[in-house]
């Protein structure tokens, strides 16, 4: 009997956690459709903040830049990351363990440290702030995620398939193209989506590396929040969070976040 009560309590607890996680996001989205500039209630439906967005050239420029940076980051990180995963998975060699450990610093060291270190270094070599620096930083942050996701997919690969193809006369190029690649494609897609999300949502590193007046969307939002904001920020935030959640939902279809299956 008490087990039943405990189970029910557990489910209530889970529901409360979900409420805690989603309620503020929903409130924020809700307020982007409210007419009042000062977040006054009662609620009065209006699309004026979205209309304002359409006319705000600064936000549109930052949004375009963010998407562009995320796309370039995705292409580079996915290519380099997939290549590295294949080598790390396929071959046994000295120093492999060290190379795997070296993937952790970009994830484990607080972005405040990596971001400021990049700022110093890029200034030191004369590159300075700007979109190229931001891309270099984002690719480095996304690479470990791509490698982890693609390697996880490779681990489910049945090596005897390759042997079978080879014994049937396929050369190593054909084996890679017709057997290995099709199998790991879902992993590569998931890795690419992760890379996109890492870049598109990245704030800290972009904040230190982007040029004032030439910033990404999160940096622009941060500046706006600190200056005093209007529901226009709610509107653009709602759009951003919808995009990143959609991207991750699609990624979840291709990989399962390390869960069972």
């Amino acid at each position, binding site marked *: 009997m008490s087990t039943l009560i405990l*189970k029910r309590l*557990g*489910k209530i607890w*889970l529901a409360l*956690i*979900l409420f*805690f*996680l989603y309620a*503020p*996001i929903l*409130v*924020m989205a809700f*307020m982007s459709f409210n007419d009042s500039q000062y977040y006054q*209630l009662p609620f009065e439906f209006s699309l004026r903040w979205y209309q304002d967005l359409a006319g705000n050239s600064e936000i549109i420029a930052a949004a375009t830049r963010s998407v562009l940076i995320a796309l370039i980051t995705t292409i580079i990180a996915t290519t*380099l990351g997939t*290549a*590295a995963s*294949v*080598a*790390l998975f396929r*071959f046994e*060699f000295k120093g492999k363990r060290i190379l795997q450990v070296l993937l952790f*610093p970009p994830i*484990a*060291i*607080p*972005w*405040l*440290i*990596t971001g*400021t*270190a*990049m*700022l*110093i*270094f890029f200034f030191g070599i004369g590159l300075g702030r700007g979109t190229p620096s931001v891309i*270099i*930083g984002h690719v*480095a942050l996304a690479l470990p995620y791509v490698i982890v996701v693609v390697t996880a997919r490779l681990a489910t690969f049945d090596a005897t398939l390759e042997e079978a193809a080879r014994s049937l006369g396929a050369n190593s190029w054909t084996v890679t193209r017709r057997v290995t690649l099709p199998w790991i494609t879902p992993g590569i897609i998931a890795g690419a989506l992760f890379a996109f*999300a890492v870049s598109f*949502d990245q*704030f800290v590193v972009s*904040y230190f590396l982007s040029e004032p007046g030439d910033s990404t969307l*999160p940096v622009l*939002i*941060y500046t706006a*929040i600190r200056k005093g904001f209007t529901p226009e*920020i*709610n509107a653009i*935030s709602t759009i*951003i*969070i919808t995009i*990143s*959640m959609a991207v*991750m*939902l699609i*990624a979840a279809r291709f990989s*399962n976040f390390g*869960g*069972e299956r």
Partner: protein
Amino acid sequence: MSNMLVKQDRLRIFGLLSPAYLWLTVAIFLPLSAMFYFSFLSEVPFGDAEWNFTTDNYRAFFETPTYAILLWKSIKLGLMVTLTSVLIGFPCAYVLAKTIQGRSREALFLLVILPFWSNSLVRIFSWAIVLRGNGVLDRTLNAILPFELDINLMFSTPAIVIGLVHSYLPYVILTAYLALQAIDDSLIDAARSMGAGKITILRRIILPLSLPGLLAGAVLIFVPVVGSFMEPRILGGRVGTYYGTVIEDQFVAVFNWPLGAALSFILLAVVLVILALASPILRKAQT
């Protein structure tokens, strides 16, 4: 023949790995080294500024108590956020791993993890909307409660803790869930059939076996929280001065980069010590 193959393999490994690791070197490892170098300079060595090597930046940390106090404040914040997340996240992970079955479990798990993969800045902003005085929380509670209550959590330490727990809670739920899922149910059944009570089972089986996962989650939360600056800035306002915000200031407001580099490096040292202490546990949690 076999020698040639090995050589070919070696070339292939090098060709596949070097682009990624070269990139990491340029974007992570060289910058960290440059920052270390920088932390011993007296001035920013660009343009025609006069500079020399000095340990003043580190001395500043040890001689001015402000920095150590702020670092301790940040560590306390990290402990508070980590503890809160573990306490509310563990039961949630348990319910997901052991009580809920089938397809709904997968969907619920995804729902819990999803916010973690969305924009952290936007989520902190959403709390600013909720917590403001005369904001949604204030109005809702006053509409429900029979007495007048003035809740303005915005710009306070609780606001920062709430925002950070919201940001990092999914970490510990994820790691605890994976650890709990690995516990064989028959082990629990066996203990129960031999007369062990719920608390005994929790204390003697479930907690010890899920401890590596819990600790891994705790480290993954603690480390970024100690280095946080955006969350305290937005939700803390004037009380939001932490070690991270001081480092941020050195780079974007005061432009004392060498001091900022030294402060960053001290933070890195703290982080590395924690990661090193936790690495046996983290490795255990991984397998």
